């Protein structure tokens, strides 16, 4: 039996999401058609829109369904007439690559966006900037001070986009209370199907579509609605909201892992250990023990974890997130990410610790 501890890459689908999706797969309609099947499809889409909005306490009318988090992030950056774009140095590649000329807000060694630096950058910036800071980092799980980011941005007349792909469904999230203008979500990260996500955008924003065509999604995103995907996303969002206490419990499991691995090897570094993190994510490194070696040994032992983000793990390059936190190349090259999710059990961590402990002892003996 293989142990899956790579939920930040993708999560297995929740049973409720699968049920909603398979039911929608059996319905033939195009949600933009006016006949019976079309109207039934439309009702499914609108119900899912309300479920997704509820997860982050937003208005359903703000939800623009997309093909996933990457499209949502690209749409947010390309869709607004921003005078300047500022993104944190720890953002996902879908923001970094979409805005190669954006100003980068540095991170502290703990992986938190440097608010003083942001304040200074905004002071020199023209009005109408776009600030994009993620809610929680995909590699370290470090939670960003979004309320403070929004306060600084507001004072400078800037919009705020927040990539909440990794945070949604793991910690409580209130888009309205936080005052976020745009927010990105991905279904498959929270136990929904892959191939669907959302950009939530306040209606007064002058947001231009990224994909043009039919008038779907209030003219903000053309293309036939991915009905089964959207229905599955809605069900997953509802379950994720209900399951927030389960995620809180995962935090205890994760703390147990961090304590135990430090017992095995006291020199292990936990990135972002001193700051607030997601209850499901630990990024740990033992200098001198390359990530590739660990991944191979763990895979042989039937334990799936990752180094860095999945999208870039095909390339052997150190994580830009850890580099922005001031990690050395050796440290970053030794970092593995353990991420838990809705189906994780304590036994998973036991397997990981046993396999990692074996590897560690072998590496010490060598």
């Amino acid at each position, binding site marked *: 039996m293989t142990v899956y501890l790579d939920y930040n890459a993708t999560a297995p689908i929740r049973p409720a999401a699968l049920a909603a999706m398979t039911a929608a797969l059996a319905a033939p309609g195009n949600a933009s058609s*006016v006949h019976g099947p079309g109207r039934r499809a439309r009702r499914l889409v609108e119900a899912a829109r309300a479920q997704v909005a509820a997860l982050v306490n937003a208005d359903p009318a703000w939800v623009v369904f997309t093909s996933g988090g990457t499209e949502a992030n690209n749409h947010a950056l390309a869709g607004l007439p921003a005078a300047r774009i500022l993104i944190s140095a720890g953002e996902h590649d879908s923001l970094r690559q979409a805005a190669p000329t954006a100003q980068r807000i540095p991170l502290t060694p703990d992986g938190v966006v440097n608010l003083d630096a942001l304040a200074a950058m905004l002071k020199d910036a023209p009005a109408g900037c776009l600030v994009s800071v993620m809610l929680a980092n995909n590699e370290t799980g470090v939670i960003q001070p979004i309320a403070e980011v929004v306060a600084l941005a507001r004072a400078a007349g800037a919009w705020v986009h927040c990539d909440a792909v990794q945070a949604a469904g793991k910690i409580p999230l209130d888009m309205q209370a936080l005052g976020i203008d745009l927010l990105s979500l991905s279904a498959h990260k929270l136990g929904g199907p892959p191939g669907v996500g959302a950009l939530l955008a306040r209606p007064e924003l002058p947001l231009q579509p990224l994909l043009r065509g039919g008038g779907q999604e209030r003219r903000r995103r053309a293309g036939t609605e991915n009905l089964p995907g959207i229905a599955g996303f809605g069900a997953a969002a509802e379950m994720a909201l209900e399951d927030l206490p389960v995620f809180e419990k995962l935090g205890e499991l994760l703390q147990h892992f961090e304590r135990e691995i430090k017992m095995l090897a006291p020199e292990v570094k936990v990135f972002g250990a001193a700051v607030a993190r997601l209850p499901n994510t630990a990024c740990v490194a033992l200098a001198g023990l390359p990530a590739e070696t660990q991944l191979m040994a763990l895979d042989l032992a039937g334990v799936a974890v990752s180094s860095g983000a999945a999208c870039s793990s095909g390339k052997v390059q150190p994580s830009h997130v850890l580099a922005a936190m001031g990690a050395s190349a050796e440290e970053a090259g030794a970092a593995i990410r353990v991420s838990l999710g809705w189906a994780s059990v304590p036994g998973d961590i036991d397997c990981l610790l046993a396999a990692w402990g074996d590897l560690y002892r072998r590496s010490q003996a060598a």
Partner: protein
Amino acid sequence: MAKSDGSKANRRPPGIYLDNQATTPTDPRVVEAMLPFFTERFGNPHSSAHAFGWDAEEAVEQAREQLAALIGASPREVIFTSGATESNNLAIKGAARFHRERRPQVVTLASEHKCVLESARQLEREGHRVDILPVGADGLVDLDLLARTVTEETAVVSIMAVNNEIGVIQPVAGIAAICREKGAYFHCDAAQAVGKLPLDVAALGIDLLSISGHKFYGPKGIGALYVRRRPRVRLEPLIDGGGQERGLRSGTLATPLCVGLGAAAAIAAAEMESESARISALKTRLLEGIRKRLSGVALNGHATLRIAGNLNLAFEGVDAEALMRAMPGLAVSSGSACTSTAVEPSYVLRALGLQEARARSSIRLAVGRFNTEAEIDATVEELAAQVARLRREGSAAAE
């Protein structure tokens, strides 16, 4: 409900779906192929560190091969997208923006899908020169006019293989020859053609070809863009990030949807010929049945150069919206699905030069894989009865 549908309700065909150009039911074999990749084989295909990821990646690559085989491409030329709207946006905006300096012109047709026309209009706002050519009364491109319009400054010519409303088949090879001569890319929106007509991108000389999963019994939320490699077609991506799909389309690939699209392609490749004959026979039965029962019925678009399943019919003196409301058990459409929430006459029919009254009296009947003779016969009955009733009421109101 209105009184009019009371006594006849039991004769109404229960839930007949003849809107297979808006979307198709997902083939149960496709669903079966997809399901394991939602559940136990759920890995992220870009996770290179463990077996979950490798398993998913292998499935994605097999699907890519199945899709490539259907259109005569090499797997490396197939880019997965979220659907044909994205493929069309990427092809047209991507090609035009990449070549904006030396080739500022874009050419397309007035009868193209909304997402093609809207992409072109966006390019126009960005300073590109956009030529939107008229089509003939039969819906076909005027190749002489096209040859006069395409120049050495044309970045991309976007013309669909099969029209979504009237089903006419454009002379794809002829268009490709004109583009080739001027060095312009030929982008072909084949969302309505793939899986229904044999298509060979190499033989036809197509540079970019858009595919939609849900238009040929595959899943929604997935499509593809064929991007020629020799000579290489250059595009500016629309969606950046992890660099997936050779940097042309970032984002985690949806493994189950890719698998579903591949399965749909494999089924289409194996069954296209027999299915086309069967659907063509059903379509003929439908048309002959209607013509036997009703006069004043006209076919929109070329009579023979059209795909097997499509009928676009004008019922003289009948308002299409009223007709559709009178047949709630029959799913058909007027105009394309994306615009049908707005009640305006089809711009495609207007592009054929049809009068507004005729456009407003037209509906599209699209026969598909799962329709039966019994459904066709019931549709004929229903249409004949309701058209006759609406005409009676219409002439009574006029007196």
